[in-house]
């Protein structure tokens, strides 16, 4: 609760800073400072809550537990890392730097709502607070036609999917007469009315859209490709992870008892997501577009956590959210330094800047899920959850096969950097601060891979 208030207030402060602080650089520094404050508020929230304590706010509108607080803290940490890494690029997008950071603060407010909601009204407003700033950020580069196209496309599709979400909420309300997600717990399947089932289906489709699962993924490549790269990095990581946590919260808390009724539909969505994401990523020529498809593929793995309704799944979601966010933010931070976003643009980077190439390699290995990186542990935990649940073994085997396919397109970048001749041109000089921050990101990826318990035992 404290974090929601803090995020809003800090967003308003940043808005006013845009009025009084003219220098772009000082606005960015202020934003980074305020994100530090926000992280502090989150940690304060975390340490003042006992391990098994569950707090309710405003007539059970929010139910705050340790898991949600820890997730919020980690996501704020990732946002801070993101802001530090890309603040220079954000300043180059346009002239409204303060507003961009204010919108990021508001998105964080939505993230906190989505991890703690106990009422579908809060879920709906949270999803909207998460989405509307994204539509704006996607279209913030007004000199670029592709950015405007991305914004409009995202807005239209997003508004449509929100309509479906509302329809699902309405049907569930009609079937149960409540908005409270705990009271949705249907104990026996034969008590389930078709109206409730239709509502669950609508909600699943709306969530699948928000997390860009196939066949509702069509917007993802165009939006991620068209949006300014710094904001793509944010959309593909923190926002996506929190949409997943909201998805999981509703489907395990409310519909967990009747998982056999919706599991098959979600399993097919998962299989389609893994297939479409990985196979299409193979054919991309631009690394940015490849990362967009790879984010669809990674969403396929995260769907396993939603599918397997058990304790390991919650752990898997936490580590997947963090490992995927950190590695992707790092990868996008490197990508922003490149002049040419195609694979050829990476040719010979290892000779020109061995350090940057090594960092990129670690990020890509993590995304591919190679042992000793965070990505491996993340994939391990979500698949472990599915194996423990035991109903979807065919899907686990399919996912392993798809993970092997994904190695191809990630390694293609590594091949280009190390084995191809070329002169990889950098957009800007990589400063010592950038190198230091990237080194920290690499360290985080490796620490997550070596000691995942650091973030799981909380």
């Amino acid at each position, binding site marked *: 609760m404290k974090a*929601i208030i803090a995020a*809003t207030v800090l*967003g*308003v402060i940043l*808005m006013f800073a845009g009025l009084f602080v003219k220098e772009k650089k000082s606005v960015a520094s202020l934003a980074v400072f305020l994100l530090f404050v926000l992280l502090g508020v989150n940690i304060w929230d975390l340490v003042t809550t006992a391990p098994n304590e569950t707090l309710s*706010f*405003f*007539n059970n*509108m*929010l139910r705050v537990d340790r898991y949600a607080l820890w997730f919020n803290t980690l996501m704020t940490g990732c946002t801070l890392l993101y802001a530090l890494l890309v603040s220079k690029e954000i300043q180059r997008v*346009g*002239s*409204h730097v303060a*507003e*961009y950071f*204010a*919108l990021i603060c*508001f998105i964080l*407010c*939505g993230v906190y*709502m989505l991890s703690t909601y106990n*009422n579908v*009204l*809060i879920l709906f*407003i949270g999803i*909207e*607070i998460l989405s*509307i*700033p994204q*539509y*704006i950020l996607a*279209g*913030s580069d*007004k*000199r670029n036609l592709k950015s405007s196209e991305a*914004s409009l496309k995202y807005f239209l599709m997003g508004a449509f999917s929100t309509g479906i979400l509302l329809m699902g909420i309405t*049907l569930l309300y*009609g*079937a149960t007469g409540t908005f409270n997600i705990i009271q949705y717990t249907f104990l026996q399947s034969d008590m389930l*009315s*078709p*109206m409730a*089932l*239709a509502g669950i*289906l609508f909600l699943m489709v709306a969530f699948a859209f928000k997390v860009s699962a196939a066949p509702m993924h069509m917007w993802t490549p165009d939006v991620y490709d068209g949006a300014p790269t710094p904001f793509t990095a944010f959309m593909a990581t923190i926002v996506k992870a929190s949409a997943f946590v909201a998805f999981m919260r509703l489907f395990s808390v409310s519909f967990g008892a009747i998982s056999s009724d919706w599991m098959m539909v979600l399993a097919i969505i998962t299989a389609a997501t893994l297939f479409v994401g990985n196979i299409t990523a193979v054919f991309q020529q631009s690394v940015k577009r490849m990362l967009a498809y790879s984010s669809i593929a990674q969403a396929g793995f995260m769907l396993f956590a939603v599918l397997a309704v058990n304790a390991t799944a919650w752990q898997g979601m936490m580590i997947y959210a963090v490992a995927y966010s950190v590695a992707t933010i790092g990868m996008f931070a490197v990508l922003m330094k490149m002049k040419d976003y195609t694979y050829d643009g990476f040719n010979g980077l290892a000779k020109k800047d061995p350090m940057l190439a090594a960092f990129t390699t670690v990020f890509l290995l993590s995304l591919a899920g190679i042992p000793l990186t965070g990505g491996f542990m993340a994939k391990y935990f979500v698949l472990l959850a599915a194996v423990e649940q035991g109903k979807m073994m065919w899907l686990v085997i399919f996912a392993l096969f798809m993970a092997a396919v994904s190695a191809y397109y990630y390694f293609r970048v590594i091949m280009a950097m190390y084995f191809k001749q070329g002169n990889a041109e950098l957009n800007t000089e990589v400063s010592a601060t950038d190198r230091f921050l990237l080194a920290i990101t690499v360290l985080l990826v490796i620490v997550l891979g070596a000691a995942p318990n650091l973030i799981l035992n909380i």
Partner: protein
Amino acid sequence: MGIYEISFWFLTVMALSCALGVILSRNPVNSVLFLIATFFAISGHYILLNAQFLAIVNIIVYAGAIMVLFLFVIMLMNLNADTEPQKNRLVQIAGAISGGTLLLVILAALRTSTITSLDQTSTDIGLIKNLGKTLFTQFVLPFEISSVLFLSAMIGAVVIGKKEQTV
């Protein structure tokens, strides 16, 4: 059949036929006018349910503000047969099939659900006084927090609408 039933059936027929008019009429301006009529019919339903506030808001916001905006956009864009996008036959068939499936699901849901009639004892539930009370007690958090949503939408209007300085 009392006055209640008569007005209910009248409004229902009006809402459904106007809704059909929205999607069947060729001229977009006609579509918008049909949509306004649909909103009025639905507002009539709200009044029958004793939700006066909702009915008035529906007319002011939807039939009034949003539809005027719609009309302006359509008139400014000057839509005619030449600008109509080419429709793919395959997409049409796929749309018909998936839409039909959805209709089937919702019909099945409606058929088996138990319809509870309007609770006549609490007929003042839709009045503005009770609405305000619920909004500021039970639903105060969603109500207040939607201000963040509007604030970000306003920022968006400024960021997107303001002219970018040439660098």
